[in-house]
């Protein structure tokens, strides 16, 4: 990735390069940014101009392994680059397809946020701007310095592949983050894809239930509640959750779409039962069968418990009572 660095970032990277974050390979992009000022200053500017002009539409970025090594690199880092290239972190910001969300867009290009991304070894900020695309484009062009590559577009039919770019997969990609408006469709899809999520309710659209949803997700640990003005904290918290959280979002197997049709044991059967209510005889028969199966199941469970004598925990007892 082409990076534009400041002195501050360089020093930070040096300090943390030799650290090992549990179980994670180091982001090769962090390594490429360790560049001396004199020689690469002009080339950085050249890069800057190129990036700006490629802003519109969606641009394919080369994988990290193809980047040129900088002379300041330590041997440790050199070894990592020569290993299989791992895609770096992406922060994907989406405002949805129904309404604009300018406050979110303006916050993600503030220097504070961009620096936070850079500090946390993100190498790409991708933004789906919706109706504010032209405005956002201008804002980005007028930025004095850009620590992280910024891609932007207005709408797309296929959001899935952008979400997947932020998905943490073992030996393939570092987990990034998706910063999304609080639309239920978006949230469900991101959670289904197992991508770290920060939910930002829109205060102007809020009819209370957006914040309610974000709060609920935070309490169950499925996502982070992102408040406008405090997004850097949200990003930090998300990375924390990924590193130590129970959802195991950093070493996932490569994404494969779920099977369709859904296996019988996991199907939703509500509509079938309702259809059966239109045929009372059939309904009675099926209910009878269902009761028989339930009895059989609980009987088998009792047998198993009798075979393996163990002190029953309170939960087991409760479960048994429920059945």
């Amino acid at each position: 990735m082409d990076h534009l660095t400041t002195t501050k970032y360089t020093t930070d990277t040096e300090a943390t390069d030799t650290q090992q974050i549990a179980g994670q390979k180091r982001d090769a992009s962090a390594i490429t940014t360790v560049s001396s000022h004199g020689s690469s200053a002009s080339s950085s500017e050249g890069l800057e101009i190129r990036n700006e002009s490629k802003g519109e539409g969606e641009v394919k970025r080369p994988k990290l392994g193809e980047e040129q090594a900088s002379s300041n690199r330590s041997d440790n880092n050199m070894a990592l680059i020569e290993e299989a290239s791992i895609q770096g972190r992406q922060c994907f910001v989406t405002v949805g397809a129904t309404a604009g969300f300018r406050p979110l867009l303006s916050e993600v290009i503030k220097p504070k946020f961009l620096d936070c991304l850079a500090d946390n070894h993100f190498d790409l900020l991708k933004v789906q701007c919706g109706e504010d695309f032209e405005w956002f484009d201008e804002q980005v062009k007028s930025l004095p310095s850009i620590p992280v590559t910024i891609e932007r577009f207005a709408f797309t039919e296929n959001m899935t592949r952008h979400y997947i770019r932020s998905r943490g997969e073992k030996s393939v990609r570092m987990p990034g983050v998706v910063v999304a408006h609080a639309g239920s469709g978006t949230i469900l899809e991101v959670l289904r894809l197992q991508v770290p999520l920060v939910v930002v309710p829109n205060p102007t659209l809020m009819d209370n239930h957006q914040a309610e949803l974000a709060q609920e997700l935070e309490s169950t640990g499925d996502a982070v509640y992102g408040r406008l003005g405090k997004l850097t904290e949200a990003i930090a918290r998300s990375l924390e959750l990924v590193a130590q959280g129970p959802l195991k979002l950093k070493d996932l197997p490569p994404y494969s779409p779920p099977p369709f049709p859904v296996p019988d044991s996991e199907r939703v059967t509500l509509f079938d039962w309702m259809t059966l209510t239109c045929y009372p005889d059939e309904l009675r028969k099926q209910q009878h069968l269902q009761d028989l199966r339930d009895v059989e199941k609980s009987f088998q469970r009792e047998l198993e418990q009798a075979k393996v004598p163990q002190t029953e925990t309170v939960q087991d007892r409760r479960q048994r009572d429920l059945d």
Partner: protein
Amino acid sequence: MAPTTSASVLTGKEESRNDQELKPNTRAETYSRLDVETVNGINLTAAAFVAGAASSTAAGLVLSCLSWPWLISLVITVGIVLGTFIVYRHFEMIRRRQKPGGSWLVPSNTFQANAAGTQVPNTTSLPAVYFTYILGSGGHTAEMIETIRQSFRGQANIHRRYIISIGDTSSLAKARLLEATIKDAYSGEDAQAGTSDIFLIRRARKVHQPLYTAPFTCLISALHAANALTRMPNPRSTTDHGKEFRYPHVIVTNGPANGFIVCLVAHLLKIFYLVPENRAKMVYIETWARSKTMSLTGKLFLKTGIADVVGVQHESLARIFKGSQYIGPVSAGFLQR
């Protein structure tokens, strides 16, 4: 009936125009074009539905030659009679439904997805299984599609009907994509996937539409809804069990306003004996996003008691709103809680 026929022709034209608009949008991954049902001609039930309205207005016009006091008293009497009839039928239907042991009752422990080993309710031996899904806008459609995916079973006796508002191109595209996916999953055994069609109905009121035209557009919308609910699916009309496919078994909606309107129309059809009472069971599914409050449509369904099942996807909500039932995370899919 001049107004009604022109309405259907209008819809037909708009229909085909919509198709033309949508063709350039079909994506590179070619999915077979679903045969979109064009609304040509009204079926008998919808005709009866509108005949009542038209004849009453005609009668009113004829009687306008009467002097004012007679006219007013006549209108009031008719209004009272009709109103009483509707209210009485409404409560009678609800009472019959709630009677324990009635054929409507579904045991609550079967709502959740069955654990491994339990027999899934078997509908393969039924003569017909006919679902009607009402697709709304944006997030509603996404959740509905996921719900359909989670509940889908490949059976030859299934017919799926999608009711979509005219102008809602993204929902139309999603429905087509879903049907194409189903077809792919059962490629080679076409009959296994069942049949499907799509109906486009007019919105009750477009944005910026002047209010004085609202009652007329509401009526037209109701007419389209009645048609969508009672029109025999084309591929099934000539089969053995064709008659069983006349009326939908289950109508599923999850939130948008047009969902409530279609369900209201279905309820009225049942009240006036135009649709048998043991058909057109209605399910309202609250969005997964709501765990503490209920949306306006949900509250409407609860208050009016139209739906057979008002389903919520969080237990906390079921506890707060009496009358709603916890049905599990049906539109989330990935959650096995």
